[in-house]
């Protein structure tokens, strides 16, 4: 049974979620104290942020605890809480007071995280959240890039930061097809081997392809340059002997499973489905409709290949 819970097979992440629900700050702080990888830190922070209603608890902790962890978690939670209010409805269906509350949550998150990044310029989780906030608060294309560049001085080639820049550079967020593709290539080709840096390129292709109508999309995936870039991306990341990706390994496999399925290369998709097992991830499956149904259909084809 495919399951899109981001905690995946990691029991410690489930335990982290339970610690948030029971408002156990020492356990939460202890967990984050043991994480050294910035990508894993951000991943776990997002998990905390998705616990509904946790902003009250995190707000109290942020008032009394020294350091930046509580404020970082509070900031990321406020973003999710804001989106909860906005309820992910299409813009025209959201009421005026919902939009106001949405923006107020985002502004509060931004104010908290401005302070955090000022105190701790290498705090990747806080910067990633600020790149995300840049979209919701409509602060501009160049400002998104500036935030990414500031983070990159301390933590270069961070996939999840790059993924948020890809979003900002999409036409739907006032970017352009050229810009988003160029950025994806830049990330892939300047990233270290065996890293997640190639995923940004995949996401660029997903965004461009899924923006098209069905017929044009199929043509897009048939382009030899697109296929070549995705092959290159796989060779530099998941297929590379030095590939290590912590909590986001599943994200990588899900991305390539989807990409190769779209390319029609189900044989290439198969090893990724094997690696995924039942742990789906990433919202891109949802671009095909119901994410469970889309995943299962693609997996079925890959198994047969």
């Amino acid at each position, binding site marked *: 049974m495919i399951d899109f819970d981001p905690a995946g097979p990691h029991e410690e992440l489930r335990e982290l979620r339970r610690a948030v629900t029971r408002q156990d700050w020492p356990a939460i702080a202890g967990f984050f104290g043991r994480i050294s990888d910035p990508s894993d830190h951000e991943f776990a922070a997002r998990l905390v942020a998705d616990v509904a209603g946790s902003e009250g608890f995190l707000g109290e902790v942020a008032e009394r605890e020294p350091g930046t962890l509580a404020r970082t978690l509070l900031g990321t939670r406020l973003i999710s809480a804001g989106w909860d209010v906005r309820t992910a409805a299409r813009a025209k269906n959201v009421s005026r007071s919902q939009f106001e509350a949405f923006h107020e949550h*985002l*502004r509060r998150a*931004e*104010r908290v995280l*401005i*302070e955090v*990044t*000022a*105190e701790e310029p290498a705090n990747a989780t806080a910067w990633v959240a600020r790149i995300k*906030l840049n979209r919701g*608060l409509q*602060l*501009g*294309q*160049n*400002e998104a*890039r*500036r*935030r990414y*560049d*500031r983070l990159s001085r301390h933590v270069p080639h961070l996939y999840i930061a790059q993924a948020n820049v890809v979003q900002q550079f999409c036409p739907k967020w006032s970017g352009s097809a050229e810009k988003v593709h160029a950025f994806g290539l830049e990330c892939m080709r300047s990233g270290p081997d065996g890293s997640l840096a190639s995923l940004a390129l995949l996401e660029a292709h997903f965004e461009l392809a899924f923006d098209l109508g069905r017929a044009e999309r199929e043509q897009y995936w048939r382009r030899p340059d697109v296929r070549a870039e995705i092959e290159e991306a796989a060779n530099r990341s998941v297929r590379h002997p030095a590939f290590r990706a912590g909590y986001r390994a599943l994200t990588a496999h899900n991305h390539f499973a989807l990409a190769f399925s779209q390319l029609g290369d189900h044989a290439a998709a198969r090893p990724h489905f094997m690696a995924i097992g039942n742990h789906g991830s990433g919202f891109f499956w949802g671009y095909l409709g119901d994410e469970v149904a889309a995943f299962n259909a693609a997996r079925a084809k890959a198994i047969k290949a």
Partner: protein
Amino acid sequence: MSFIQTEVDGVSTLFAEQSGPMIAGLTFRVGQADETLAGRGITHLLEHLVLHGHGLTDYHYNGATGVVITMFHLQGGEDDIVAFLNGVCDSLRDLPMHRLETERQVLRAEEGGRRGGPADLLALWRYGARGYGLTAYEELGVPRLTGEDLQRWAQFWFNRQNAVLWLAGERIPPALKLALPEGARRPVPEPTSALRGTPAFFRGNGSHVAYEGIVRRSVAGSALSGLLERELYRSLRQEDGNSYTAAATYEPRGDGYASITALADAVPDKEDAVLGGFVDVLAKLRAGRIDPADLQAVKAKADDAMRGPMVDVGRLPSLAMDLLTGFPLWPTEDIRAEMQALTVADVHAAALDMLATGLLQVPSGHDALWAGFEAAPVASERQVEGQRYPNRREGKLKLVVGPHGVGLEQDGCPPVAIGFHECAISLAYPDGGRQLIGHDSLTIRIEPTLYAVPPHELARIDAALAAVTVPQPPRDPRQIPRPDAPAPAGAPAPASAAGSGGRTGRLVGAVIALVLSVVVLCCGGLWTLVLNDQSDPDSSVPIDAYSIGINVFIYALAVGLGVFGAVLLRRRNRK
């Protein structure tokens, strides 16, 4: 101490002994911040008049009107300086009023050539249309200042007790005769406020970012300004490449506080990143992450500027201002020592003061709510009581005219109101239009062409604002709003071009139609002749319904063309 305090003719004096060319100045405790908007420019006008007194016609550039002080200064031989300073004092007692109109014109011309600075608006938004905010305004009072106004101004402000003489040279010239009237020292004005809280932001109409914060006057404040400039320059220009200019200055206000002003321009289209980068620099200061190496560099630069034999001479004008504003006179060595001892913690404390009073100008199309700045007020707290007059062009906008003031009202928008007692100026145009500016710098235009305000009400408003009314030259008629035209001050040229094109077109059309109608009439006549000639049965056209119909048709066409042509001819002059 390398300067001494003494007295000349009862005027407090600062003297620095030095063997170079003599340089001297007479500074008075009066400036733009002491004026009112309706009298804005009086100090500058007086300064100009004074410099055209007896025997002073060569010294047009030797005066300076500042925010809280005004200074007459000269460098030269002892005799020249004595003649100059004595002449200034004589001139103040006996103003050359015959020059008044000329100097009024000179000031208007100077104003026309004056380019505003990119940080001008900060004072206006912080202080409003009075006190320190007046530096942001043009010299609107100049047209109506009278000789009596100037005499009174001279008498009140340019007196012996409100003056300081500063002088660097071999000796204090014995021939100095500073014959100033008796009076008193005038304290600097209390700062006014047009803000409800800080930190606050407002939208400018350019692409640059400007910022101002207020700190206690101190060496730490001055160092903070240097640090802020280094951070902005490094971050916005060197690292991001999004700004060309990134700078900060430190200016004592005269009341024990100082203004730190910072500015960053934006390379085309990059203003979003300049704003973001600016916000992050401020946040870094708030967090206290000040690199000791940066502080050291700022200290070294400040120390360099305080070394050398001419430093004390250079400091004399600002020492004179300190003396006039009641600030202790610090020897240069003491300032250098204090600067040396400055710590990161000292500068951080000054930064927190600056940030708490911060005012940020953001590029158009942006805001700073997300960065923790509240919006500076663009409206009044409440509307005035009164009669409402709808705007003839946009009915939803109403002018409110009441016993105590006027206002602008629009559904769903916050009120704009100016009470008569809070009106800083009324610019009065001969066509009846009025522009009112309130103390909080909000503006209301009363346009008789747009609002059906009865004449006796307009007269009542004028009477209530008589003390602050400044007559203006007649407006270009295209500037006067019309109730029917969509844009009052829009480009007049396209409208008349269209009109003349239409006129020509109709004239040509009329001529063609009339010519054609004559031609067709002739055809009709010819056809009638043909029909009438039934002499030869073989070659004649039979008279039947068909042939007669043709004849009728041709005559009708002729008539129709004629009428059409006549109509075009008549209509060619209509719009």
